C-alpha cells in the first residue's frame, strides 16, 4: 500500500474528533495492569538491588554470607557469581541504532562507574526480606577520584562524532565571527541548564518468567523491539526467545527506551532460580539508574542590525556526558532551522564525567537548547527595543536556513500572531518591572516552539472474525499519550465503524514490529501502519465479496467499494459488514500493513511542528516567589488526530516547561558524584497549584508531506520553548535576567528593589 492514500471523506471521519480515551475506564478503575502487577503461574520472588556507595572505583571485598542466611532469602547475586554477560563495549556504538540494542550487562565486573550502580541483587520471598538482607551486605571499595563537575573540566571538552539521532556535531554557514565582530548590536551570553530527571509515575519495573529456554518479560517499555534486542544481546539468547509484554505504561518521557538493571537482573535471577522474579527500582534508585538530562553550559551569540534583522547566530553547547557511554543531546540542532541569518554556527562539545549515561528526556535538544536560545532572543529584542514577536517575524526564513530545502508546512508566524491576539499581548509593557498589582510584579513573556517531525518504520496486523469483530495488533505502546484511542479512531475511520468496535491490542512483542513511542513519532508511524493494514483488509473484503458465490456483491466492480456506517457498499448495493463477513468469510480475514521510515519527503522538505507560548507571571515583590498565572500555547502541528488527547500532550509539555524554568534540578554533589535531592520531596516538579490556567489552541493545518494523515508529532512540542517563555515573563516582570536554570527565588531576590514604604502594603 502506498502511504500517500488520502483519508477518504466517506462515512464518519473519527480522525480529528475529541474521542475519550478508550482505556480511560480501565485506568481509573485500577483494571489496567502494569508491569509489576502481573501475575504468573507459581509463586513469584522479589528482587532488591543494592547500589554502590561510591561513584568511581571498584568493589574490593563483598561479604554476602549474613544476607544469604537471612530468612526468606533465595539468592544473593554479585559480580562474583552473576551469569556471564558480554562486555559493555565502547562508549559509542558503531551505528546510531545500536545504542538501543547493545548489551547492557549488570553485576558483570567489580568496577563501579557511577554512584548507586548495582553491586548486588538480593532475591527473597518478599520484597521486605530482600531489602532487609541487602542492608547487611558488607562491601569495601577502592574509591578513585572521579570527575563530576562539568564546569571544572571544560578544558577536557571534546567534539563527539555525532549527536544523538545522528545529527552532525557542528554546522557552519558563512562567517559568523566576522559578522559578530562588526555588529553594532549583539548578544553574547552564557546560559546553564541543570541535570534533570524524568520521574515517570510508574518506576522502572519488570516481572520475568522463564518457560524452558524462553523468557516472558512484563516490563515498562516504550519500544518493545529495542528492549527485546537489548535483552537478547545481554542474555546472549535469540531474540525470538524473548517475549515482551508492556500493555500499560505509567509514563516514559524517554526514560524507557533502553533496558535498565531491573529488566536484566529479573531475567537473570528468574533463570537462575527457575522461578518468576520481579524487580522495581525505587524512586531514589531511579535518579542514578534510569537516565537523566545532562547539565549543559550554552553560549548563545546573536548579531543583528538595528531593525532586528539577524546577521549571525552562534549556539555553542557544552554538555556533561558519561565517561563509559557517550550521549550528546542535540541541543543546538533546532537552531539550524528556526531563524534566518546569513552567518551561523552550531556546535556540540562534551565533557566526560563519572555519572551514569544521560538518556533521551522529553524533547531532547529543544528542551534545554530553547531555554537558552529563546531567552537570548528576548535579550536581543530588549536591547534593540522591539517587540519579541516582531523580532522573530523579521527573521522568519523562506526556506530552511541551513538545508536550503522548503518547509513542508511552517506556521510559526501565525502561531505567534494568533497567540498575541488571544493572550492580550498588546498589554505587555516593554519596559520591565513596571507593572505592579499590590505586592506583586506582573510580567508577560513569549517564546517560539519548534520540534522536528519523524516517521519510523512500522507494521500492523488487523483481523475481522466471522462475527465482524475487528482486532488490531502491533507492538506499539501507549505511554499515556492516547495511542490506544487514536489507533481505534484511525481503524474506525478506514473501516466505517465506530471506534468502540475496534479492539486495539498493543504492547506485545508477538505483534508486528513498530517504531514504538519516542521522538513524537508514535502516532504517525503506528497510525500509518494501522491505516495501511485497514486498507489492505478492505481490499481483501472487497475481493472476497465479489468472488464468493452467494455474496450480494458477486461479480461487481471492486473500484467502487466504500466502507461506511458499519456497511460495505459496492455500487448501489450495501450490506452490513458483519453479516457480509459471516456469509463470505466465516473463518474471518486478516491483513498486514506497513509504513517505511520517512525518506524522500523528509530529505526534500524541512519538516517541523511549531508553536508559540505565552506566559503571564506574578513575582512577589518581597520574596521573589514566582507563580505562573496564565499560559497559552498556540500550536501548528499539522492535522490533529484527537484534539482531546493532543491538548493533554501539549499541556503536559507546558507543565514541563514551567518545571524546567522554575524548579526542576538534580543537584550533583561534586564531592561524592551523587544526585543529592534524589526523591520527589526535594526534586520539585510543578503541582496543580503551580499551573492554574493553561490553554491550548491548534491552528488548522495539514502537512501532506508528513504522512497519510497530514499530522505531525506533538508529544514533545509543548515543552520546546515553554520554559523560555516563563523566564522571559520573569524578566518582563522584574528586569532580572537569570541565566542559570532553574530560575529559583534566590537568584531573583538580589535584583528586586528594597522594601521602602509600608504604605505600599495597603495598595
Amino acid at each position, binding site marked *: 500500500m502506498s502511504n500517500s492514500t488520502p483519508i477518504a471523506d466517506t462515512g464518519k471521519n473519527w480522525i480529528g474528533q475529541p474521542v475519550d480515551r478508550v482505556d480511560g475506564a480501565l485506568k481509573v478503575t485500577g483494571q489496567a495492569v502494569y508491569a509489576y502487577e502481573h501475575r504468573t503461574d507459581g509463586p513469584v520472588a522479589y528482587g532488591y538491588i543494592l547500589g554502590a556507595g561510591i561513584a568511581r572505583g571498584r568493589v574490593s571485598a563483598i561479604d554476602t554470607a549474613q544476607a544469604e542466611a537471612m530468612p526468606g532469602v533465595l539468592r544473593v547475586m554479585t559480580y562474583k557469581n552473576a551469569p556471564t554477560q558480554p562486555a559493555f563495549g565502547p562508549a559509542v556504538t558503531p551505528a546510531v541504532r545500536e545504542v538501543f540494542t547493545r548489551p547492557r550487562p549488570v553485576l558483570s565486573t567489580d568496577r563501579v562507574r557511577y554512584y548507586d550502580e548495582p553491586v548486588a541483587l538480593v532475591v527473597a520471598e518478599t520484597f*521486605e526480606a530482600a531489602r*532487609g538482607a541487602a*542492608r547487611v551486605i558488607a562491601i569495601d571499595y577502592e574509591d578513585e577520584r572521579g570527575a563530576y563537575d562539568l564546569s571544572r573540566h571544560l578544558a577536557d571538552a571534546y567534539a563527539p562524532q555525532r549527536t544523538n539521532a545522528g545529527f552532525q556535531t557542528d554546522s557552519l554557514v558563512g562567517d559568523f565571527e566576522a559578522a559578530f565582530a562588526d555588529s553594532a548590536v549583539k548578544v553574547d551570553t552564557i546560559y546553564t541548564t541543570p541535570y534533570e530527571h524524568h520521574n515517570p509515575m510508574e518506576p522502572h519495573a519488570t516481572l520475568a518468567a522463564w518457560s524452558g529456554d524462553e523468557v516472558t518479560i512484563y516490563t515498562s517499555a516504550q519500544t518493545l523491539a529495542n528492549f527485546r534486542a537489548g535483552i537478547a544481546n545481554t542474555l546472549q539468547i535469540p531474540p525470538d526467545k524473548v517475549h515482551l509484554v508492556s500493555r500499560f505504561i505509567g509514563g516514559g518521557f524517554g526514560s524507557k527506551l533502553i533496558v535498565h538493571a531491573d529488566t536484566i537482573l529479573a531475567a537473570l535471577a528468574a533463570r537462575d532460580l527457575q522461578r518468576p522474579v520481579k524487580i522495581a527500582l525505587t524512586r531514589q534508585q531511579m535518579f542514578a539508574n534510569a537516565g537523566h538530562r545532562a547539565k549543559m553550559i550554552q553560549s548563545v551569540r546573536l548579531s543583528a542590525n538595528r531593525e532586528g534583522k539577524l546577521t549571525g547566530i552562534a549556539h555553542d553547547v557544552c554538555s556533561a556526558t558519561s565517561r563509559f557511554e557517550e550521549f550528546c543531546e542535540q541541543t543546538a540542532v533546532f537552531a539550524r532551522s528556526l531563524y534566518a541569518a546569513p552567518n551561523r554556527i552550531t556546535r556540540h562539545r562534551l565533557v566526560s564525567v563519572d555519572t551514569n549515561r544521560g538518556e533521551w528526556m522529553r524533547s531532547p535538544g529543544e528542551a534545554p537548547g530553547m531555554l537558552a536560545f529563546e531567552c537570548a532572543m528576548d535579550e536581543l529584542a530588549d536591547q534593540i527595543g522591539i517587540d519579541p514577536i516582531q523580532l522573530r517575524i523579521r527573521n522568519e526564513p523562506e526556506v530552511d536556513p541551513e538545508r536550503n530545502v522548503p518547509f513542508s508546512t511552517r506556521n510559526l508566524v501565525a502561531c505567534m500572531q494568533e497567540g498575541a491576539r488571544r493572550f492580550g499581548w498588546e498589554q505587555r509593557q516593554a519596559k520591565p518591572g513596571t507593572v505592579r498589582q499590590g505586592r506583586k510584579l506582573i510580567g508577560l513573556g513569549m517564546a517560539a516552539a519548534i520540534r522536528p517531525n519523524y516517521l519510523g518504520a512500522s507494521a500492523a496486523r488487523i483481523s475481522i472474525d466471522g462475527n465482524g469483530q475487528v482486532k488490531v495488533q502491533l507492538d506499539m505502546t501507549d505511554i499515556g499519550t492516547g495511542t490506544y484511542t487514536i489507533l481505534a479512531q484511525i481503524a474506525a475511520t478506514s473501516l466505517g465503524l465506530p471506534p468502540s468496535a475496534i479492539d486495539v491490542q498493543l504492547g506485545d512483542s508477538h505483534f508486528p514490529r513498530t517504531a514504538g513511542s519516542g521522538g513524537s513519532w508514535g502516532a504517525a508511524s503506528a497510525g500509518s501502519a494501522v491505516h495501511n493494514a485497514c486498507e489492505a483488509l478492505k481490499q481483501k473484503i472487497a475481493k472476497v465479496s465479489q468472488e464468493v458465490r452467494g455474496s450480494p456483491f458477486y461479480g461487481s466492480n471492486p473500484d467502487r467499494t466504500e466502507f461506511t456506517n458499519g456497511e460495505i457498499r459496492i455500487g448501489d448495493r450495501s450490506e452490513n459488514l458483519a453479516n457480509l463477513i459471516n456469509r463470505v468469510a466465516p473463518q474471518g480475514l486478516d491483513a498486514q500493513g506497513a509504513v517505511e521510515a520517512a525518506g524522500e519527503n523528509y530529505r526534500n522538505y524541512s519538516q517541523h511542528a511549531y508553536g508559540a507560548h505565552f506566559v503571564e507571571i506574578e513575582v512577589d515583590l518581597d*520574596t521573589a516567589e514566582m507563580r505562573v498565572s496564565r499560559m497559552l500555547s498556540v500550536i501548528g502541528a499539522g492535522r490533529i488526530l484527537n484534539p482531546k488527547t493532543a491538548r493533554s500532550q501539549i499541556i503536559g509539555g507546558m507543565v514541563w516547561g514551567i518545571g524546567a524554568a522554575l524548579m526542576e534540578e538534580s543537584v550533583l554533589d561534586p564531592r*561524592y558524584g551523587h544526585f543529592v535531592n534524589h526523591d520527589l520531596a526535594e526534586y520539585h516538579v510543578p503541582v496543580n497549584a503551580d499551573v492554574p490556567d493553561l490553554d491550548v489552541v491548534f491552528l488548522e493545518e495539514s502537512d501532506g508531506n508528513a504522512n497519510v494523515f497530514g499530522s505531525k508529532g506533538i508529544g514533545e512540542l509543548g515543552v520546546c520553548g515553554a520554559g523560555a517563555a516563563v523566564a522571559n515573563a520573569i524578566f518582563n516582570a522584574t528586569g532580572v535576567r537569570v541565566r542559570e536554570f532553574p530560575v*529559583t527565588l*534566590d537568584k531573583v531576590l*538580589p535584583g528586586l528593589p528594597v*522594601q521602602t514604604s509600608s504604605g505600599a*502594603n495597603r495598595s
Partner: protein
Amino acid sequence: MKPFTYQRAGELRDAMAGVAGTPNAKFISGGTNLLDLMKLEIERPAHLIDINHLPFNGIEETAEGGLRIGAQVRNSTLAADSRIRSNYPVLAQALLAGASAQIRNKASTGGNLLQRTRCYYFYDRNMPCNKRKPGSGCAALHGFNRMHAVLGSSDACIAVHPSDMAVAMLVLDASVETMDTEGVTRQIPVGDLHRLPGSTPDVETQLKLGEMITAVILPPGQPGRQLYRKVRDRASYAFALVSVAAIVHVAGDTIAGARFALGGVAAKPWRVPEAEAILLGEKVSTEMFERAADIALANAVGRGGNDFKIPLAKRTIQQALAAASQRG
C-alpha cells in the same frame, strides 16, 4: 527493612509498658515520616507501639480559656476546627500550608512536632551525618545546603526542623504536655521542646526515653491580627525556605502587641523576644519592622547555599508584620 514487632496500644499503660519493656521501641502515630525513614533504614526500631487508638483525639476548652489539643488529633481535623479557625487562625493557616491533604489527614499533632529533618544527606545512608550516625561528620556543611539553617546551627549539624505547625504554636505560646513511663506528666513550652544541635545533633528534643506527647495546650487567644506566611519553591507541597508566623495588635495608630516566629531557619521554630519588644508602643512603619527583622536575624550565619535565607527571612518578616498590622 529491618523486621520489627508491632503492638496496638488500647490503653496508655499498655503503651508505656511496651516502650519501657522493649529495647529500641518507638511510638507510631500517623507514620507519615517514620515509615519513610524505616524503609530507608534510617530509623530501625525493633518494636512499634501504635498509639493511634489512645484517647488523645479531642480538642477541649481549658479552664484558662484556651484549648487542649489531644496529641492524636489529625492535622486536617485541627485545621478545620472552628475554634482554631476563629481564635488561632495562624495555626490553621500553618497547618494548611504543610504537606498535602492526604498527609494532613494522617499526620497527628504530636507526630508533627516530632518529625525529623528533611536534610538530603540525613536521608542518604552513604553520606556522613552526625544526626544519623554521630561522629561521622556533616556532609551538608560544605555541600549542597540550600535548605539548611542560618540560626542556631553548629559545625556538627545545620539541619532545619520542617514543621509549619510548630512555628505557629510557638508564636501562640503553646506548651506540650507529656507523660513518661512512670506516669509522670509535665508541660514543656513548644519553644523548649526541640534542642539546638550543638555537638549532639542526634538528640533532637527534651523528651526522655519513652516520654510521650499527650497534648498541646494553647493559652487563650490574643488580640491582634494573625497570619502565617510560608515562602517555598512551589505553590504547594514543599517545605518552607523561610516562614513567618506573626501576630500584631494595632491600637489606635500604635502597636500594642507584636510577636513573630520563624520557620525553615533552624533546628527548631525560632523566636526572638527582643525583636518583638522594640515594636511595642511604636507606630506602624517599614523602618520599625526592618529593625525588628534585623534584631531577629542578628546572629544569622549563612553556609553558602543558604545565604539567601537571611535577606529572604528579613524581607518576609517585614512583609508579614506589615500585613498583620493592617486593619480590617
